[in-house]
Protein backbone atom coordinates (compact mmCIF):
# COMPACT_ATOMS: atom_id res chain seq x y z
CA UNK A 1 0.00 0.00 0.00
CA UNK A 2 1.08 3.54 -0.76
CA UNK A 3 2.34 5.59 2.16
CA UNK A 4 -0.18 7.95 3.73
CA UNK A 5 1.21 11.20 5.11
CA UNK A 6 -1.05 13.33 7.29
CA UNK A 7 -0.39 16.89 8.38
CA UNK A 8 -2.35 17.69 11.54
CA UNK A 9 -3.13 20.83 13.47
CA UNK A 10 -4.16 20.99 17.13
CA UNK A 11 -5.26 24.17 18.93
CA UNK A 12 -8.08 23.10 21.23
CA UNK A 13 -6.66 24.46 24.46
CA UNK A 14 -3.26 25.86 25.30
CA UNK A 15 -0.89 24.23 22.81
CA UNK A 16 -0.49 25.42 19.22
CA UNK A 17 0.72 22.33 17.44
CA UNK A 18 1.42 20.93 13.99
CA UNK A 19 2.71 17.46 13.18
CA UNK A 20 3.35 15.32 10.15
CA UNK A 21 2.97 11.56 10.56
CA UNK A 22 3.45 8.76 8.05
CA UNK A 23 1.10 5.77 8.05
CA UNK A 24 -0.20 6.61 11.50
CA UNK A 25 3.08 5.49 13.04
CA UNK A 26 6.16 7.33 11.90
CA UNK A 27 6.46 10.86 13.26
CA UNK A 28 8.20 13.05 10.70
CA UNK A 29 7.74 16.14 12.83
CA UNK A 30 5.80 17.07 15.95
CA UNK A 31 5.98 20.76 16.82
CA UNK A 32 4.28 22.15 19.91
CA UNK A 33 4.39 25.82 20.84
CA UNK A 34 3.40 25.53 24.44
CA UNK A 35 1.67 28.39 26.19
CA UNK A 36 2.27 27.01 29.65
CA UNK A 37 4.61 29.77 30.82
CA UNK A 38 2.04 32.43 30.00
CA UNK A 39 -0.80 30.52 31.63
CA UNK A 40 1.33 29.98 34.73
CA UNK A 41 1.41 33.74 35.10
CA UNK A 42 -2.38 33.88 34.89
CA UNK A 43 -2.89 30.92 37.20
CA UNK A 44 -4.79 28.93 34.59
CA UNK A 45 -5.86 28.96 30.95
CA UNK A 46 -7.77 32.14 30.12
CA UNK A 47 -9.60 31.52 26.84
CA UNK A 48 -8.94 34.96 25.34
CA UNK A 49 -5.24 34.80 26.18
CA UNK A 50 -4.98 31.29 24.73
CA UNK A 51 -6.66 32.40 21.48
CA UNK A 52 -4.23 35.29 21.15
CA UNK A 53 -1.26 33.01 21.52
CA UNK A 54 -2.68 30.64 18.91
CA UNK A 55 -3.06 33.29 16.24
CA UNK A 56 0.40 34.54 17.08
CA UNK A 57 2.04 31.11 16.76
CA UNK A 58 0.02 29.20 14.19
CA UNK A 59 1.82 30.00 10.93
CA UNK A 60 5.27 29.55 12.47
CA UNK A 61 4.30 26.19 13.93
CA UNK A 62 3.08 24.94 10.53
CA UNK A 63 6.24 26.13 8.83
CA UNK A 64 8.46 24.51 11.44
CA UNK A 65 6.66 21.17 11.15
CA UNK A 66 7.14 21.18 7.38
CA UNK A 67 10.80 22.16 7.66
CA UNK A 68 11.51 19.49 10.22
CA UNK A 69 9.81 16.84 8.08
CA UNK A 70 11.58 18.24 5.00
CA UNK A 71 8.28 18.21 3.16
CA UNK A 72 5.99 20.62 1.37
CA UNK A 73 2.24 20.58 1.89
CA UNK A 74 2.11 19.19 -1.66
CA UNK A 75 3.65 15.96 -0.31
CA UNK A 76 0.96 15.26 2.26
CA UNK A 77 -2.22 13.30 1.58
CA UNK A 78 -4.63 15.13 3.88
CA UNK A 79 -4.96 17.84 6.49
CA UNK A 80 -6.39 16.69 9.84
CA UNK A 81 -7.41 19.12 12.54
CA UNK A 82 -9.02 19.16 15.96
CA UNK A 83 -12.60 20.32 15.50
CA UNK A 84 -13.56 19.97 19.17
CA UNK A 85 -14.13 19.68 21.99
CA UNK A 86 -12.15 22.60 23.33
CA UNK A 87 -12.10 26.35 23.73
CA UNK A 88 -14.02 27.96 20.88
CA UNK A 89 -11.63 30.85 20.23
CA UNK A 90 -8.64 28.54 20.29
CA UNK A 91 -10.26 25.95 18.03
CA UNK A 92 -11.15 28.62 15.44
CA UNK A 93 -7.51 29.41 14.77
CA UNK A 94 -6.53 25.81 14.10
CA UNK A 95 -9.65 25.17 12.02
CA UNK A 96 -8.91 28.15 9.77
CA UNK A 97 -5.27 27.15 9.46
CA UNK A 98 -6.24 23.62 8.42
CA UNK A 99 -8.84 24.87 5.95
CA UNK A 100 -6.31 27.29 4.49
CA UNK A 101 -3.85 24.49 3.77
CA UNK A 102 -6.58 22.22 2.41
CA UNK A 103 -7.83 24.99 0.13
CA UNK A 104 -4.45 26.31 -1.01
CA UNK A 105 -3.01 22.86 -1.74
CA UNK A 106 -6.22 21.08 -2.69
CA UNK A 107 -6.02 18.42 0.00
CA UNK A 108 -8.83 16.59 1.78
CA UNK A 109 -9.82 17.95 5.19
CA UNK A 110 -10.29 15.59 8.11
CA UNK A 111 -11.98 16.88 11.28
CA UNK A 112 -10.92 15.00 14.40
CA UNK A 113 -12.44 14.63 17.84
CA UNK A 114 -9.83 15.68 20.38
CA UNK A 115 -10.44 12.85 22.83
CA UNK A 116 -10.27 10.26 20.07
CA UNK A 117 -6.90 11.73 19.19
CA UNK A 118 -5.72 11.26 22.78
CA UNK A 119 -6.67 7.59 22.58
CA UNK A 120 -5.02 7.16 19.18
CA UNK A 121 -1.80 8.64 20.59
CA UNK A 122 -1.21 5.15 21.97
CA UNK A 123 -0.94 3.82 18.42
CA UNK A 124 2.36 5.67 18.16
CA UNK A 125 3.86 3.19 20.62
CA UNK A 126 1.89 0.00 20.02
CA UNK A 127 -0.78 -1.31 17.67
CA UNK A 128 -4.26 -0.77 19.05
CA UNK A 129 -6.17 -4.01 19.58
CA UNK A 130 -9.94 -3.88 19.57
CA UNK A 131 -12.15 -4.03 21.49
CA UNK A 132 -10.40 -1.75 23.93
CA UNK A 133 -11.23 0.34 26.93
CA UNK A 134 -9.63 3.69 27.43
CA UNK A 135 -9.49 5.85 30.50
CA UNK A 136 -9.29 9.43 29.26
CA UNK A 137 -8.15 11.84 31.94
CA UNK A 138 -7.18 15.46 31.34
CA UNK A 139 -7.79 19.05 32.33
CA UNK A 140 -11.07 19.00 30.45
CA UNK A 141 -12.09 15.34 30.43
CA UNK A 142 -12.57 12.29 32.54
CA UNK A 143 -14.19 9.50 30.56
CA UNK A 144 -14.22 5.75 30.30
CA UNK A 145 -14.52 4.87 26.63
CA UNK A 146 -15.21 1.59 24.88
CA UNK A 147 -14.00 1.20 21.30
CA UNK A 148 -15.07 -1.97 19.47
CA UNK A 149 -13.15 -0.95 16.37
CA UNK A 150 -11.18 2.05 15.18
CA UNK A 151 -14.31 3.89 14.07
CA UNK A 152 -16.59 3.21 17.03
CA UNK A 153 -16.57 5.09 20.30
CA UNK A 154 -18.88 4.62 23.23
CA UNK A 155 -18.66 6.66 26.41
CA UNK A 156 -19.45 4.29 29.27
CA UNK A 157 -19.04 6.86 31.98
CA UNK A 158 -17.88 10.39 32.41
CA UNK A 159 -17.48 13.10 34.97
CA UNK A 160 -20.69 14.64 36.24
CA UNK A 161 -19.01 17.91 37.14
CA UNK A 162 -15.31 18.80 37.17
CA UNK A 163 -12.74 17.00 35.10
CA UNK A 164 -10.01 15.35 37.14
CA UNK A 165 -7.39 17.82 35.88
CA UNK A 166 -9.63 20.72 36.94
CA UNK A 167 -9.96 19.24 40.43
CA UNK A 168 -6.17 18.98 40.64
CA UNK A 169 -5.83 22.62 39.57
CA UNK A 170 -8.35 23.81 42.13
CA UNK A 171 -6.83 21.88 45.01
CA UNK A 172 -3.37 23.05 43.96
CA UNK A 173 -4.63 26.64 44.15
CA UNK A 174 -5.87 26.02 47.69
CA UNK A 175 -2.46 24.65 48.63
CA UNK A 176 -0.76 27.60 46.85
CA UNK A 177 1.10 25.27 44.54
CA UNK A 178 0.47 27.23 41.33
CA UNK A 179 -0.60 26.12 37.88
CA UNK A 180 -0.77 23.50 36.41
CA UNK A 181 -1.87 21.67 39.54
CA UNK A 182 -1.54 18.06 38.38
CA UNK A 183 2.24 17.65 38.32
CA UNK A 184 2.64 19.80 41.46
CA UNK A 185 0.24 17.75 43.58
CA UNK A 186 1.68 14.53 42.18
CA UNK A 187 5.16 15.64 43.27
CA UNK A 188 4.14 16.91 46.70
CA UNK A 189 2.08 13.78 47.39
CA UNK A 190 5.25 11.69 47.11
CA UNK A 191 6.46 13.25 50.36
CA UNK A 192 3.21 12.62 52.17
CA UNK A 193 0.84 9.92 53.28
CA UNK A 194 -2.87 9.64 52.60
CA UNK A 195 -3.81 9.91 56.26
CA UNK A 196 -6.64 12.45 55.98
CA UNK A 197 -10.12 11.15 55.35
CA UNK A 198 -11.86 12.96 52.50
CA UNK A 199 -15.38 12.33 51.16
CA UNK A 200 -15.60 9.60 48.53
CA UNK A 201 -17.34 10.98 45.43
CA UNK A 202 -20.88 9.80 44.65
CA UNK A 203 -22.27 9.40 41.14
CA UNK A 204 -25.39 8.24 39.31
CA UNK A 205 -24.20 5.92 36.55
CA UNK A 206 -22.00 3.04 37.67
CA UNK A 207 -19.09 4.14 35.47
CA UNK A 208 -19.59 7.86 36.02
CA UNK A 209 -17.10 10.01 37.87
CA UNK A 210 -17.36 13.13 40.00
CA UNK A 211 -14.74 15.38 41.51
CA UNK A 212 -16.38 18.60 42.62
CA UNK A 213 -17.54 17.10 45.93
CA UNK A 214 -14.00 16.00 46.64
CA UNK A 215 -12.70 19.48 45.95
CA UNK A 216 -15.24 20.98 48.41
CA UNK A 217 -14.33 18.19 50.82
CA UNK A 218 -10.75 19.42 50.77
CA UNK A 219 -11.88 22.99 51.51
CA UNK A 220 -14.14 21.87 54.35
CA UNK A 221 -11.38 19.73 55.78
CA UNK A 222 -9.01 22.72 55.83
CA UNK A 223 -11.67 24.86 57.55
CA UNK A 224 -12.31 22.20 60.15
CA UNK A 225 -8.63 21.78 60.93
CA UNK A 226 -8.20 25.55 61.18
CA UNK A 227 -11.11 25.83 63.60
CA UNK A 228 -9.60 23.12 65.74
CA UNK A 229 -6.26 24.90 65.54
CA UNK A 230 -4.59 21.84 64.08
CA UNK A 231 -1.74 22.02 61.60
CA UNK A 232 -2.26 20.53 58.17
CA UNK A 233 0.64 18.76 56.54
CA UNK A 234 0.30 19.87 52.92
CA UNK A 235 2.04 16.79 51.57
CA UNK A 236 -0.39 14.57 53.45
CA UNK A 237 -3.34 16.53 52.15
CA UNK A 238 -2.01 16.30 48.59
CA UNK A 239 -1.53 12.56 49.03
CA UNK A 240 -5.00 12.13 50.56
CA UNK A 241 -6.69 14.08 47.77
CA UNK A 242 -4.79 12.21 45.10
CA UNK A 243 -5.46 8.84 46.67
CA UNK A 244 -9.20 9.49 46.94
CA UNK A 245 -9.50 10.85 43.40
CA UNK A 246 -7.46 8.09 41.81
CA UNK A 247 -9.16 5.32 43.77
CA UNK A 248 -12.46 6.60 42.45
CA UNK A 249 -11.15 6.40 38.89
CA UNK A 250 -9.58 2.98 39.34
CA UNK A 251 -12.68 1.53 40.92
CA UNK A 252 -14.90 2.62 38.01
CA UNK A 253 -12.38 1.57 35.39
CA UNK A 254 -12.00 -1.91 36.87
CA UNK A 255 -15.77 -2.32 37.05
CA UNK A 256 -15.90 -1.59 33.33
CA UNK A 257 -13.00 -3.89 32.52
CA UNK A 258 -14.70 -6.69 34.43
CA UNK A 259 -17.92 -6.17 32.54
CA UNK A 260 -16.64 -5.76 29.00
CA UNK A 261 -14.46 -8.30 27.31
CA UNK A 262 -11.56 -6.23 25.96
CA UNK A 263 -8.07 -6.94 24.67
CA UNK A 264 -6.43 -3.70 25.72
CA UNK A 265 -6.79 -1.06 28.39
CA UNK A 266 -5.30 2.32 27.51
CA UNK A 267 -4.59 5.42 29.47
CA UNK A 268 -4.93 8.73 27.60
CA UNK A 269 -4.92 12.49 28.19
CA UNK A 270 -2.77 14.92 30.14
CA UNK A 271 -3.37 13.33 33.54
CA UNK A 272 -2.02 10.06 32.08
CA UNK A 273 1.36 11.52 33.01
CA UNK A 274 0.47 11.34 36.70
CA UNK A 275 2.94 8.95 38.35
CA UNK A 276 0.56 7.72 41.06
CA UNK A 277 -2.11 6.87 38.49
CA UNK A 278 0.38 5.00 36.34
CA UNK A 279 1.55 3.01 39.34
CA UNK A 280 -2.02 2.11 40.27
CA UNK A 281 -2.72 1.01 36.71
CA UNK A 282 0.40 -1.14 36.61
CA UNK A 283 -0.46 -2.82 39.90
CA UNK A 284 -4.09 -3.39 38.94
CA UNK A 285 -3.26 -5.00 35.60
CA UNK A 286 -0.23 -7.00 36.71
CA UNK A 287 -2.13 -10.26 36.85
CA UNK A 288 -4.86 -9.58 34.36
CA UNK A 289 -5.45 -10.84 30.84
CA UNK A 290 -5.91 -7.44 29.26
CA UNK A 291 -2.86 -5.73 27.86
CA UNK A 292 -2.18 -2.45 29.64
CA UNK A 293 -0.87 0.43 27.52
CA UNK A 294 0.58 3.45 29.27
CA UNK A 295 1.53 6.19 26.83
CA UNK A 296 4.98 7.75 27.19
CA UNK A 297 4.87 11.14 28.86
CA UNK A 298 5.60 13.07 25.65
CA UNK A 299 2.35 12.02 24.03
CA UNK A 300 0.05 12.51 27.05
CA UNK A 301 -0.19 16.27 26.74
CA UNK A 302 -1.87 17.93 23.76
CA UNK A 303 0.05 17.54 20.52
CA UNK A 304 -0.75 17.26 16.85
CA UNK A 305 0.90 13.87 16.24
CA UNK A 306 -2.03 12.19 17.97
CA UNK A 307 -4.42 14.13 15.72
CA UNK A 308 -2.45 12.91 12.72
CA UNK A 309 -2.78 9.28 13.86
CA UNK A 310 -6.54 9.63 14.33
CA UNK A 311 -6.53 11.45 10.97
CA UNK A 312 -4.75 8.53 9.34
CA UNK A 313 -7.42 6.06 10.42
CA UNK A 314 -10.19 8.44 9.40
CA UNK A 315 -8.48 9.00 6.05
CA UNK A 316 -8.17 5.33 5.16
CA UNK A 317 -11.78 4.84 6.28
CA UNK A 318 -12.78 7.42 3.71
CA UNK A 319 -13.93 10.06 6.19
CA UNK A 320 -13.75 13.59 4.74
CA UNK A 321 -14.67 16.96 6.15
CA UNK A 322 -16.14 20.00 4.47
CA UNK A 323 -15.35 23.70 4.38
CA UNK A 324 -18.72 24.42 6.02
CA UNK A 325 -17.75 22.62 9.21
CA UNK A 326 -16.72 25.01 11.91
CA UNK A 327 -15.12 24.56 15.30
CA UNK A 328 -17.38 22.83 17.82
CA UNK A 329 -16.45 23.45 21.44
CA UNK A 330 -18.75 20.69 22.66
CA UNK A 331 -18.31 18.31 19.75
CA UNK A 332 -19.74 14.87 20.35
CA UNK A 333 -18.10 11.81 18.94
CA UNK A 334 -19.31 10.71 15.50
CA UNK A 335 -21.01 14.06 15.00
CA UNK A 336 -21.32 14.88 11.31
CA UNK A 337 -22.16 18.58 11.20
Amino acid at each position, binding site marked *: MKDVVILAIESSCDESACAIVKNGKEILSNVVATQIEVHEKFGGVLPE*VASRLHVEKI*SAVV*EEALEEAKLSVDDVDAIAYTRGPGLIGSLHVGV*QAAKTLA*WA*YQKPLIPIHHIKAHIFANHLITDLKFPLLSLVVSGGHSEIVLMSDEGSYEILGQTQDDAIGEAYDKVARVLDLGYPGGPKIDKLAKDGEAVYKLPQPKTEGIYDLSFSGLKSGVLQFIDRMKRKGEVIVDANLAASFQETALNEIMEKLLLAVDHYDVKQVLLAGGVAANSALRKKMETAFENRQEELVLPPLWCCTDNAAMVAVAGYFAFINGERGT*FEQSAKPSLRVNEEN
Partner: protein
Amino acid sequence: MKTLCMDTSHRYLVLVLMENDEIKASKSMYAWKKQSETIFVELINLMEAVSWQPDDIDEVVITVGPGSYTGIRIAMSIAKVFCSSKKKTLYTISTLQLYAGLDTCSVMLDARSNRVYYGKYQQGKCLAEGIKTLDEIKALSENMIGDVSLIGKEDKNPDFVLNFKELRPYYKKVDNIHGLVPRYLKEESAYLVK
Protein backbone atom coordinates in the same frame (compact mmCIF):
# COMPACT_ATOMS: atom_id res chain seq x y z
CA MET B 1 -1.26 41.37 -10.06
CA LYS B 2 -4.05 39.49 -8.28
CA THR B 3 -5.20 40.57 -4.86
CA LEU B 4 -7.42 38.91 -2.24
CA CYS B 5 -8.94 41.22 0.39
CA MET B 6 -10.61 39.83 3.51
CA ASP B 7 -12.39 41.46 6.43
CA THR B 8 -13.94 39.46 9.26
CA SER B 9 -13.17 41.88 12.02
CA HIS B 10 -16.62 43.22 12.86
CA ARG B 11 -20.16 42.38 11.78
CA TYR B 12 -19.53 41.68 8.10
CA LEU B 13 -17.72 39.19 6.00
CA VAL B 14 -16.06 41.03 3.12
CA LEU B 15 -14.15 39.29 0.37
CA VAL B 16 -12.76 41.01 -2.72
CA LEU B 17 -10.82 39.59 -5.64
CA MET B 18 -9.02 42.32 -7.57
CA GLU B 19 -6.80 42.25 -10.58
CA ASN B 20 -4.66 45.33 -11.10
CA ASP B 21 -7.11 47.41 -9.08
CA GLU B 22 -10.10 46.17 -11.01
CA ILE B 23 -12.71 44.37 -8.89
CA LYS B 24 -13.26 40.94 -10.42
CA ALA B 25 -15.58 39.46 -7.81
CA SER B 26 -16.69 40.36 -4.33
CA LYS B 27 -18.94 39.42 -1.47
CA SER B 28 -20.04 41.60 1.40
CA MET B 29 -22.53 40.09 3.79
CA TYR B 30 -23.74 40.48 7.33
CA ALA B 31 -22.12 37.55 9.12
CA TRP B 32 -21.95 38.40 12.83
CA LYS B 33 -20.25 35.43 14.53
CA LYS B 34 -20.73 33.42 11.35
CA GLN B 35 -17.53 34.38 9.57
CA SER B 36 -15.71 31.22 10.58
CA GLU B 37 -18.07 28.83 8.85
CA THR B 38 -18.91 31.04 5.86
CA ILE B 39 -15.58 32.46 4.80
CA PHE B 40 -14.22 29.48 2.86
CA VAL B 41 -17.56 28.64 1.29
CA GLU B 42 -17.83 32.21 -0.05
CA LEU B 43 -14.17 32.41 -1.01
CA ILE B 44 -14.36 29.18 -2.99
CA ASN B 45 -17.48 30.47 -4.80
CA LEU B 46 -15.75 33.70 -5.75
CA MET B 47 -12.60 31.94 -6.91
CA GLU B 48 -14.68 29.66 -9.11
CA ALA B 49 -16.58 32.60 -10.57
CA VAL B 50 -13.35 34.14 -11.86
CA SER B 51 -11.56 30.83 -12.47
CA TRP B 52 -8.64 31.60 -10.18
CA GLN B 53 -6.52 29.05 -8.38
CA PRO B 54 -5.13 29.84 -4.93
CA ASP B 55 -1.65 29.97 -6.49
CA ASP B 56 -2.76 32.79 -8.79
CA ILE B 57 -3.15 35.14 -5.85
CA ASP B 58 -0.12 37.41 -5.49
CA GLU B 59 -1.06 39.36 -2.41
CA VAL B 60 -3.52 39.39 0.45
CA VAL B 61 -4.98 42.37 2.32
CA ILE B 62 -6.71 41.95 5.69
CA THR B 63 -8.09 44.18 8.39
CA VAL B 64 -6.08 44.07 11.59
CA GLY B 65 -8.74 45.46 13.97
CA PRO B 66 -9.87 46.92 16.21
CA GLY B 67 -13.07 44.90 16.31
CA SER B 68 -14.35 41.53 17.48
CA TYR B 69 -11.37 39.59 18.83
CA THR B 70 -12.60 36.27 17.53
CA GLY B 71 -13.58 37.82 14.21
CA ILE B 72 -10.24 39.46 13.49
CA ARG B 73 -8.45 36.19 14.14
CA ILE B 74 -10.44 34.37 11.42
CA ALA B 75 -9.05 36.26 8.42
CA MET B 76 -5.70 36.72 10.11
CA SER B 77 -5.20 32.99 10.71
CA ILE B 78 -5.98 32.32 7.06
CA ALA B 79 -3.75 35.12 5.78
CA LYS B 80 -0.81 34.19 8.01
CA VAL B 81 -0.86 30.52 7.01
CA PHE B 82 -1.53 31.19 3.32
CA CYS B 83 1.01 33.97 2.87
CA SER B 84 3.76 32.29 4.86
CA SER B 85 3.43 28.89 3.22
CA LYS B 86 2.86 30.16 -0.32
CA LYS B 87 5.31 33.08 0.01
CA LYS B 88 2.76 35.75 -0.83
CA THR B 89 2.81 39.39 0.16
CA LEU B 90 0.55 40.37 3.06
CA TYR B 91 -0.85 43.83 3.80
CA THR B 92 -3.05 45.11 6.59
CA ILE B 93 -5.33 48.07 7.09
CA SER B 94 -7.16 49.31 10.16
CA THR B 95 -10.75 48.11 10.43
CA LEU B 96 -11.83 51.68 11.20
CA GLN B 97 -10.14 52.90 8.05
CA LEU B 98 -11.93 50.28 5.97
CA TYR B 99 -15.16 51.86 7.18
CA ALA B 100 -14.00 55.36 6.33
CA GLY B 101 -12.50 54.64 2.95
CA LEU B 102 -11.40 57.90 1.32
CA ASP B 103 -14.25 59.88 2.86
CA THR B 104 -13.89 62.61 5.41
CA CYS B 105 -15.77 61.18 8.33
CA SER B 106 -15.59 59.60 11.76
CA VAL B 107 -16.19 55.93 12.47
CA MET B 108 -17.61 54.34 15.58
CA LEU B 109 -17.72 50.58 16.08
CA ASP B 110 -19.29 48.90 19.08
CA ALA B 111 -16.65 47.85 21.60
CA ARG B 112 -19.32 46.89 24.19
CA SER B 113 -19.73 48.20 27.74
CA ASN B 114 -20.79 51.65 26.40
CA ARG B 115 -17.52 52.11 24.57
CA VAL B 116 -16.69 52.35 20.90
CA TYR B 117 -13.65 52.10 18.72
CA TYR B 118 -13.38 55.54 17.23
CA GLY B 119 -11.49 56.85 14.22
CA LYS B 120 -11.45 60.17 12.42
CA TYR B 121 -10.36 60.37 8.80
CA GLN B 122 -9.84 62.99 6.15
CA GLN B 123 -9.70 61.56 2.63
CA GLY B 124 -7.64 58.59 3.72
CA LYS B 125 -5.59 60.44 6.28
CA CYS B 126 -6.04 59.21 9.84
CA LEU B 127 -6.52 62.10 12.24
CA ALA B 128 -7.31 60.04 15.33
CA GLU B 129 -7.93 56.45 16.41
CA GLY B 130 -8.78 55.18 19.86
CA ILE B 131 -11.49 54.24 22.31
CA LYS B 132 -14.25 56.56 23.41
CA THR B 133 -17.26 56.22 25.67
CA LEU B 134 -20.71 56.73 24.20
CA ASP B 135 -21.02 59.95 26.17
CA GLU B 136 -17.85 61.27 24.60
CA ILE B 137 -19.17 60.32 21.16
CA LYS B 138 -22.50 62.02 21.79
CA ALA B 139 -20.68 65.23 22.63
CA LEU B 140 -18.98 65.24 19.22
CA SER B 141 -20.68 66.81 16.25
CA GLU B 142 -18.98 64.90 13.49
CA ASN B 143 -20.13 63.09 10.38
CA MET B 144 -20.29 59.67 12.05
CA ILE B 145 -20.62 56.27 10.34
CA GLY B 146 -20.57 52.67 11.59
CA ASP B 147 -22.62 51.49 14.58
CA VAL B 148 -24.39 54.83 14.96
CA SER B 149 -27.51 53.09 16.25
CA LEU B 150 -25.67 53.20 19.59
CA ILE B 151 -26.34 56.93 19.60
CA GLY B 152 -29.91 56.63 18.40
CA LYS B 153 -29.43 56.84 14.63
CA GLU B 154 -29.59 54.24 11.90
CA ASP B 155 -26.39 52.23 11.38
CA LYS B 156 -24.37 53.48 8.46
CA ASN B 157 -22.24 50.94 6.66
CA PRO B 158 -20.02 51.92 3.75
CA ASP B 159 -19.25 50.14 0.50
CA PHE B 160 -16.56 47.89 1.95
CA VAL B 161 -15.59 46.44 -1.41
CA LEU B 162 -14.96 49.85 -2.98
CA ASN B 163 -13.10 50.99 0.12
CA PHE B 164 -10.75 48.02 0.02
CA LYS B 165 -9.87 49.01 -3.54
CA GLU B 166 -9.52 52.73 -2.94
CA LEU B 167 -7.42 52.35 0.17
CA ARG B 168 -4.53 50.73 -1.69
CA PRO B 169 -2.15 53.64 -0.94
CA TYR B 170 -2.79 52.98 2.75
CA TYR B 171 -2.08 49.23 2.82
CA LYS B 172 0.71 48.45 5.28
CA LYS B 173 3.06 45.72 4.20
CA VAL B 174 3.72 43.02 6.81
CA ASP B 175 7.43 42.25 6.95
CA ASN B 176 7.26 39.53 9.56
CA ILE B 177 4.17 37.49 8.76
CA HIS B 178 4.66 35.05 11.64
CA GLY B 179 4.82 37.96 14.06
CA LEU B 180 1.56 39.61 12.99
CA VAL B 181 -1.09 39.93 15.72
CA PRO B 182 -4.45 41.73 15.82
CA ARG B 183 -5.00 45.12 17.38
CA TYR B 184 -6.78 44.49 20.66
CA LEU B 185 -8.56 46.83 23.03
CA LYS B 186 -7.17 45.24 26.16
CA GLU B 187 -3.55 44.27 26.57
CA GLU B 188 -2.88 40.69 27.54
CA SER B 189 -1.68 41.88 30.96
CA ALA B 190 -5.18 43.26 31.65
CA TYR B 191 -6.24 39.64 32.08
CA LEU B 192 -3.88 39.14 35.00
CA VAL B 193 -5.76 38.54 38.22
CA LYS B 194 -4.87 41.32 40.62
